[in-house]
Each structure stands twice: as structure tokens, then as C-alpha cells.
């Protein structure tokens, strides 16, 4: 029997949840195929297929699906709704409608599995979702249970690596091949910056034009949302009268509070996508909080499909230069706009 090929777009949820789904499907005996890392080719595909008002990540997702559609038998695009037991915290509305958007925009798609992932209700919601997915693939019984448990373990290991500060792609490669991850390099630096934003922008080095390598060259140590200890991240909810409605946004704004109050960083860079709905709110909140909490230097970098490397590097360089200048002159009054 020919092994069924399951496609997984290498964007959006890939960066945080791929180890789980990879292990799950591989253990069930399927071949999991991801699209190529984002490049001009699948970006162009996405721009061609997607409704023009959508933001960059949504266009990318369409592009990755379009790239995969002829290579695989089934495309797995989970409808991510809620991943925590909270009534009002969901994903961005665009993610909720994403499988429908893709289905109605791209012609000639293979079979789609768009099981709804809603972990807010019932007992063992993730197990139930996995069982439903397996059922759609005509699998049941002990093998599903075993795959599920292995997948959970794999994901747990992955999450631990992330808090240690291992790069996301290295961590994914390590856990799915079952190897041990190399210790992250110790990094002596005078400038620490919190680089906050959604995983699909922060960890996709094509989209953020290699921002992290460049930060290293400037001698900056970056801190991300995933490097905040999970329980500490949750504890930051108290600083807002009402939680935001979107999972990734809550993580970002809480990480902002964490880094602001810990005073471990010299400045904050918010990486956002052009036209991102939730970020319109998050960015302003971050700006106001940075201003009112010790006038923390703050910079917003907006990425879109036309983002040029030179423009981004210049802005980061200017920001870092100003931080060094500020320290040299021991000057505390600086524009919080960066």
C-alpha cells in the first residue's frame, strides 16, 4: 500500500504546534510533508490567491497550501479556535474562518481535514479532536492512543526547549528526529532587546528578513515571548482590566508586561504584520505601557510582502545606536517612539 501523504503548511501554527502533529501522524503511519520554508515562490502564490485585504500571514498560509496541493493526498489545516480553558480567548477571527477562506479561494484542492480544535470544553478535548481526525483517516483503537501520547510528550519536550531559548527551527528538527538539542550558545552582550510578536512573524526568517541574525551582528541578545516562563506569563494578566480576545495577542501583551516589570531588557521591538487587526489594539497598548512604565524605548516594525531588508536593518541599527548613546550619556529622557 502506498503511504498516504499528509501536507502541513509551514507557517502560522507550524512554529508552535508542529511537533505534536508531526509525531501524531507519523506514529499513525503516514508521511507528513511540509511546504518549503517561506520563499518568494509560495509568497507569490499566496498573493495571487488571497482576498486583497487579508494580512500577510493569511496570504502566506494560502501560498503554502497552494504549494502543497499537488504534492499531497490530504491537507491538514486544523481550525484553531481555543487552546485554553477560557471562555473568551480564541484565535484571530481570520484563523477561525481560515479553512473556509482557503476552500473558497483556491481551486483544485485535495482532501482537507479541518477538524476544529477547541480545548475549552469537555474532558480531554485534545484527545477527542485527535480521535476524530484518526476516524476521518479510518483509524481507531490503541494505535491512536499511543500516537497521541507520543505526540504529547514530543510537544512537551519542544516547549521546554523554547523556554531555554533554543531557536524554533532547531528545536523542531531536534524533537522530530529524536535527537538532543544543542545547548544555546552563551552570549555576552551589553544590549538586551525584547523582540515581541506572533510566532509566525518572529520565527519565519524570510518574512522578518533575517532580523535575528542581524540583531546578533549588532551585538544584541533577543528575548522572545516563548522565553518567558509559562507561569510567569500567565501572572501578568493582572495588569489589564480585561484580557484581550486573542490567544497570541494575550501572550504578546503579557510578555510585554513581564519584560517591562522585570527590567531585564533595554528596549522593546514589536514586530507586526501590515493590516493585522488584533495588533492595531496590541501595538497601541504596548506603546502606552512602555511610555508609562519607565519610558522604555519602544519600536514598531511592520512587515508586509514588500518589506525590504535594508529598511528594517536601518531602523534596528538606529534604535540600537540610540540605546547605546542613551546609556553612555546616562540619559533617561528619550523618545519612546524609538
Amino acid at each position, binding site marked *: 500500500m502506498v503511504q498516504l501523504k499528509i501536507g502541513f503548511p509551514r507557517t502560522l501554527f507550524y512554529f508552535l504546534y508542529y511537533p505534536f502533529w508531526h509525531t501524531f501522524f507519523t506514529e499513525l503511519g503516514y508521511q507528513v510533508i511540509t511546504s518549503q520554508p517561506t520563499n518568494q515562490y509560495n509568497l507569490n502564490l499566496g498573493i495571487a490567491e*488571497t*482576498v486583497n*485585504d*487579508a494580512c500577510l500571514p493569511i496570504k502566506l498560509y494560502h501560498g503554502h497550501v497552494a504549494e502543497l496541493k499537488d504534492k499531497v493526498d490530504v491537507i491538514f489545516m486544523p*481550525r484553531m*479556535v481555543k487552546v485554553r480553558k477560557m*471562555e*473568551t480567548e*480564541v*484565535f*484571530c*477571527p*481570520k484563523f*477561525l*474562518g*481560515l*479553512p*473556509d*477562506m482557503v476552500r*473558497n*479561494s483556491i481551486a483544485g484542492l485535495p482532501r482537507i481535514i479541518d477538524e*476544529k480544535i477547541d480545548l475549552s470544553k469537555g474532558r480531554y478535548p485534545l484527545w477527542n479532536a485527535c480521535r476524530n481526525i484518526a476516524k476521518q483517516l479510518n483509524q481507531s483503537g490503541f494505535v491512536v492512543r499511543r500516537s497521541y501520547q507520543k505526540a504529547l510528550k514530543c510537544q512537551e519536550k519542544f516547549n521546554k526547549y523554547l523556554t531555554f531559548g533554543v531557536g524554533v527551527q532547531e528545536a523542531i528538527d531536534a524533537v522530530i528526529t529524536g535527537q538532543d538539542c544543542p545547548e544555546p550558545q552563551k552570549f555576552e552582550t551589553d544590549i538586551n532587546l525584547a523582540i515581541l510578536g506572533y510566532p509566525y512573524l518572529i520565527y519565519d526568517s524570510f518574512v522578518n528578513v533575517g532580523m535575528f541574525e542581524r540583531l546578533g551582528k549588532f551585538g544584541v541578545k533577543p528575548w522572545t515571548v516563548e522565553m518567558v516562563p509559562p507561569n510567569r506569563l500567565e501572572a501578568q494578566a493582572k495588569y*489589564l*482590566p*480585561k484580557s*484581550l*480576545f*486573542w490567544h497570541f495577542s494575550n501572550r504578546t501583551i503579557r510578555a510585554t508586561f513581564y519584560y517591562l516589570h522585570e527590567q531585564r531588557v533595554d528596549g522593546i521591538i514589536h514586530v507586526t504584520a501590515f*493590516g*493585522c*487587526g*488584533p*495588533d*492595531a*489594539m496590541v*501595538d*497601541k*497598548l504596548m506603546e*502606552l505601557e512602555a*511610555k*508609562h512604565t519607565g519610558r522604555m524605548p519602544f519600536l514598531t516594525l511592520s512587515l508586509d510582502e514588500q518589506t525590504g531588508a535594508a529598511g528594517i536593518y536601518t531602523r534596528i541599527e538606529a534604535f540600537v545606536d540610540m540605546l547605546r548613546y542613551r546609556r553612555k550619556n546616562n540619559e533617561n529622557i528619550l523618545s519612546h517612539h524609538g
Partner: protein
Amino acid sequence: MKISFPIMGNSYIAFKQLIKDLGHEPIVPPMPTARTMSLGTMYSPEFACIPFKILLGTYLEAIEMGADVIVSSGGHGPCRAGYYGILQQKIIEDLGYDTKIIIFDSFAKTYKDFISKLSWLLKTGKKSWWDLYQAFKPAWAKLKALDEIELYSHQVRPYEINQGETTKVYRKCLEIMDEPVSKLQIKEAKEVCMKMLKEIPQDKSRNPLKIGIIGEIYVLIEPFANLDLQATLGEMGVYSERSMNLFHWLKENTKMSRHEKKIIKSALPYLREKIGGHGINSIGETVMYAQQGFDGVIQLAPFSCIPEIVAKGILPQVSHDQGIPVMTIFLDEMMGKAGMQTRLEAFVDLLQQKRDLKFA
């Protein structure tokens, strides 16, 4: 205390009365103008949707007029509108004002908070819960009457013989509706208004094109935000129907109606998840307008509105399957009346041709 509130269509007439009856001084902010828009745009996040910007501009104008408290509605997402109040409060504080924004979230989910805010309003106005009940009834009746008058004006407009007359009469109606206080007076005033609208000379022999208007609720209802789309269509001799009005929305907010269920059912083949705002409604209503034999559908949404972008991505398929032309208009602070008029004329011409072909 001086209390203000956002402007949304003609509802200010009813809210003004409610606040007065609760023992406070209502501050009716000026109708949104270019100044409101530029004030709001100046202090809002760049990619906030247009209702956010208009509301913030309105609040700043109300603060200039001396408002101590602004009352508005909230929500629980995932549409951004549910978070407006908190961010706007922070922006207003940052600008150095101490005006408080009081947000009423859904009663069902946060009833304790809802009641405590309400009782604070009553206490500061030195009124009892009974007074609230007494004040609420006429305000509710007024809201309903205002909605009915507006709807009727849109039915009359495509048939009017002297172009622009309905709009003139409608403005007069709003002035009349500002006067009455008791429920009986409201009823009488409404009848006067309806009669005035009915007496506008009309040419009933026309068979106007029928267009359904769907989309995000604020830009549907507030004529400033949609550049008075419905009146413009009416004066072009097109009959238009809007999927939502304020009274129905308030009613549906408290309880899901059968109508709403039907909408969701119609949307199901295309969109299987509620995506917040009125995203799923836009899909379902397009299907329903197609089934009711409308000639076309216009989707109105604020630029960068998340649920409506999802809907827009799906609508071409709906339009294809159901055979109903759909045009999407995203509204932002740069929108000009002439651009809109041109697009409308082109769309209406196409619809007319389609209809002529069908009957040829």
C-alpha cells in the same frame, strides 16, 4: 453629572431622553464631521477600524463639551469592538483627561458588573430602579419608532418624484421625534411622521432594482461612516434593504432569534464557524437576499475589519453559486463621496443590464 454617548444613526434622540430621565445631563456630541474623523484618526492606532476612530473623535468632542462620563457598549470578542472601551480609556488618560468611559458588556456574561455600573449611574442621578424602569419604556419605544421611520423613508425614497424630498422630510421627522416624552406622545409623533412620509408625491409605477446591504453593523447604521449610502441609492431610484438596524440588534443581543438561526443555517455551506462581529451574517444574508430575488448585494465594512475580510474572501464563491452580484466597499477615513458614487452608478448599471437581459 454630564453624560455622553456615541452617535450611531438616529439613536441619539432616544439615548438623550433616557439619560435625562435618569437624572443626568445628556451631552449630545455633534454629528460626526470631518473634524471628528481627523481628531479620532490622530489619536487612534493606524489600523484600528473606522468605528474606533469615529467613536474616539466623538468622545474627544464630547469631552470638549464638558462630559464627565461616557457610556458605551462592549463585547466579548473575537471582534475588536469589544475592546474599544478599554483602549480608548487609556488613550484619553494619556491625553490628560480624567473622563471615565463606562462600558456595558453583555448582561448574560458579566451581570454583576453590569448591575453595579447601572446602580452607580442611578445613585449619582438620585434615581431608583423603578425610575429606571419608567424611563426605559419610553426610550425603548422611541428607539423602535425611530427605526421604523428610517426604514419607511428608505422604502419611499426610490419612488419619490421630486428628488431629495424624502431626505428633507426625514430630517423634519427627526426634529419632531425629539419632542415627545411619554409613550403616548411618541406614538402620536410617529404617526405624524409616517403620514408626512406617505404624503410625499410618488410614482408607484416604477419597478426599482432591489439591493441588499450587508456588513458590519456600525458602518451600516451610521450614515456619516457609509457616506449616506442608502439615501444615495434611493435617489438613484434603487430600492435598498439593510440587513440590520439598531433596534433589532439590541433585541438580538439579548436573545438569539429565529431569524438569526436561519442566517447561520444559510451560511453553513460556506462558513462553518462563528467568526465574531457580523462575519457569518454577511454570508448568510447574501444567500437569503439571493433567494428573495434581490438584484444585487453590497457589502459594507470598515477597512481592516477582520470578520468582514474573511467574509469577503468567501463571498465570490457565494456570488457565483447563488447567481447574485456582490460588491464590497471597504470604508476608511480617506473615502470620498465621488468615488463611492461612481462605483455605485457602475454597479447599478450592471445590475440593470443583467435584469434587462433576463426579461429580453
